[in-house]
């Protein structure tokens, strides 16, 4: 019964995530915002599952597992880039262009 507002909330969260990715410069913060977007989607899954039965909630677990895997790999990559350039400020990382 609370489908409307929960979808609205997840949409707001999602757009916040997108805004974060757009304006922040630090790679890790960007990644956090992406996680925020994923959780917004989880929220909407839960909202829909509340109406359509349990299968929605199962999907949330898949999403979380995937997010975890991504986090591990992402942070490893950020460490690698930090080792090279002593910064993970996105604006310094622009060797590849043109």
């Amino acid at each position, binding site marked *: 019964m609370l489908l409307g507002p929960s979808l609205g909330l997840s949409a707001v969260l999602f757009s916040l995530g997108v805004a974060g990715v757009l304006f922040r410069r630090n790679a890790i913060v960007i990644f956090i915002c992406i996680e925020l977007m994923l959780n917004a989607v989880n929220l*909407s899954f839960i909202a829909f599952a509340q109406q359509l039965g349990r299968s929605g909630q199962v999907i949330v677990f898949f999403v979380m597992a*995937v997010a975890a895997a991504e986090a591990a790999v992402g942070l490893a990559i950020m460490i*690698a880039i930090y080792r090279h*350039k002593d910064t993970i400020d996105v604006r310094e990382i622009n060797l*590849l262009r043109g």
Partner: protein
Amino acid sequence: MWPVIDLGLPGGVALALLPELVLTGCALCLTILVAWRHRSEEDQLLVGYLAAVGLVLTAAVVVVFWVSDVRAGGLESMIALDGFRYLTDLIVLLGALLTVLLSLGYLGRERILVPEYFLLLLYATVGMMFMGGGADLIVIFLGLELMSVSVYVLAGIDRRSVFCAEAALKYFLMGAFASAFLLYGIALIYGFTGTTNLGLIYVQTATWVFQENTMLLIGIGMLLVGFAFKVAAVPFHMWTPDVYDGAPTPITAFMAAAVKAAAFAAMLRVLLEALGPVTVVWTEIVWWLAAITMVVGNLVALAQRNLKRMLAYSSIGHAGYLLTAVASGTDFGAGAFLFYAFAYTIMTMGAFAIVAAAGRRGERDLRVEDLNGLAKRRPWLALAMMVFMLSLLGFPGTAGFIGKWYILSAALEAQNGLLAVVLVSTTVISAGYYLPVIMAMFMKPPASDDAHEHVTVTGAARWVVAATAVVLLVLGVWPGPAMDVAGQGGRDLRPSVMITVSK
């Protein structure tokens, strides 16, 4: 032997997933092997060869499934059992196999000692097989994520190169960002159709008037955004040039060929099997995506001096051609996609093999001028590169032309005459950067006498180049059977539930 599998029973599902299981099994065994033997070059070569064996094995299983035309009894719940899946699996496996063979020599020369490289390749391939074969949005999403994560790492595999790290980071951030969009799309569609199974969605969309259901439209939109990113359609393509340029060459080839093919397969399966009845909604968008991608991809490639970066932009152009096939919105288009994807995989693998050979250790900036006079010193290599360039250009006598002809036919049959003209005009633009490569090799004198001493294609890579060039020419001259197979594969994309709906 067992033409029909009942997906209801767990045993049936397991049987249906046999190819994926075989590959995962190999990958796991190799993981254990790598744990012990990861210190020397030979270890890496061994892992490489075993990976190749694993891939061939899987391919054999797929062929068995395909030849005996295994079908699903009733609703295809998780995995689809049709020609389209088997063919995409074969294309993806071929791409992976060629990448493995190329990497054997390349890793040694670049002194990258990371046996896990081949494992990641296998895992990425499994992910792609799920994308191509998944009959459920979530299965496709999982396959996509599995592939993406493996390829993020593969892109950044060379720890000593800052370019590799930057490529991996960019790919990771953009990739995650895009999968969030994809997931949001899946959520919305799940929300309003009550299911994530493609066949059932097809039933839902067939009976519903889309005008007043904006949320579902947004869902479809989000889905398209996610796929457009994966497929590197303009304006979501910005990551492609930098990642392709930074990543090691075999991985770039892998991404350009196999990853793109799998992404397209997933997109096609979702659009045709799930959103079949509402083609009018998405064909217009795909139409625009195709047109813009072709134009921008080819134009920017014209301005590139670095050969690898030029091939990156050209792969965006080719994504545009494949989008034209998708834009036709018919199973005929799917057939066109299958043939073109197969031909494109071969061309790109060959071209990048020679780019890898021509580039010196670590030296990234391989310009077109560096190929000057290659024909004098390495005639066979130059000849092969010419075949690849002509095929990429779509010149008659090569598989590229037959692919383009197939796509043009699909577009014209779906009354997209204008898109066909855009395709043809951008092909002319592409001649603007493919021909100078041939010109440099054959018509310009080499910079110095020992200019191309270092250009050596050894062992497996030599076979890759030779085989791909020959296959391209044979397909170009005798495309009959291959086209029929692709056409059959495409026709399989009709929804498994066989509900006849007046189109």
